């Protein structure tokens, strides 16, 4: 059986209800750029809803807030993660604590498994901003 790749996002420092989610890469529908500093990734809705509140075909999504104009580098980074066969990828964990295999805290902040390329035309480093990621399910 083909193994799936799962993308983990956690948007808050308190892990409040609804702020953590895992998305299956094979459920990816598409990504778009809502603002100069954000890129949104859409997936098949987990609740099975066919339409959203606006009456449009529904998705679940997470939005990464990032360096100004870094959209294409963010897209490429997440695409590389989704193309990795089988596994669990932390896209962004705003709680910021990484854990070792025995469950002890490694103490880093703003944890992510993805490293993003610099913007091709300017060389500006691309990173996820302080507000990190938001989840909409």
């Amino acid at each position, binding site marked *: 059986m083909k193994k799936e790749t799962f993308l983990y996002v956690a948007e808050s420092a308190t892990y409040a209800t609804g702020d953590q989610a895992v998305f299956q890469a*094979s459920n990816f*529908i598409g990504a778009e*750029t809502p603002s*100069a500093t954000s890129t949104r990734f859409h997936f098949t809705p987990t609740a099975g809803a066919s339409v959203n509140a606006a009456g449009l075909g529904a*998705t679940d999504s997470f939005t990464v807030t990032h360096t100004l104009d870094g959209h*294409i580098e963010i*897209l490429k980074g997440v695409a590389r993660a989704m193309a990795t066969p089988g596994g669990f990828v932390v896209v962004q964990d705003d709680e910021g604590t990484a854990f070792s295999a025995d469950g002890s805290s490694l103490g880093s902040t703003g944890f992510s498994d993805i490293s993003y390329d610099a913007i091709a035309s300017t060389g500006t480093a691309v990173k996820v901003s302080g507000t990190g990621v938001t989840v909409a399910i």
Partner: protein
Amino acid sequence: MNYIIANDQGTLTSLGAADQTVMFPSNMILGMDVAEDTGINLFVVSPLDTNDGDALLLKHANTNTAKLDHRKLIDECVSLINGDYNGAAVLFDAANDVKLPTQVLTGSTVTQD
């Protein structure tokens, strides 16, 4: 799965609004058609409304009656979509002058639902 990126903005600082930059997996492609004498449309499922589609217009320069560049551009598009790479491929990116061989970036657009 292959992931395809398209951006129709020629200026980096203008990125980040509707109808500009998208990425989609190859299995969300709905099809292609000949949009006009010098362009083809690639349709994909819209992430903003999964009951509708986004359209990527790929322009070419050929204006001869045989419309040979329609087919060349379709072949190049399919070749990129089915390419052997790990992650994302850029279909066209006006900010970095990336395009298919037969494509012209002027007039090539991303139109989201």
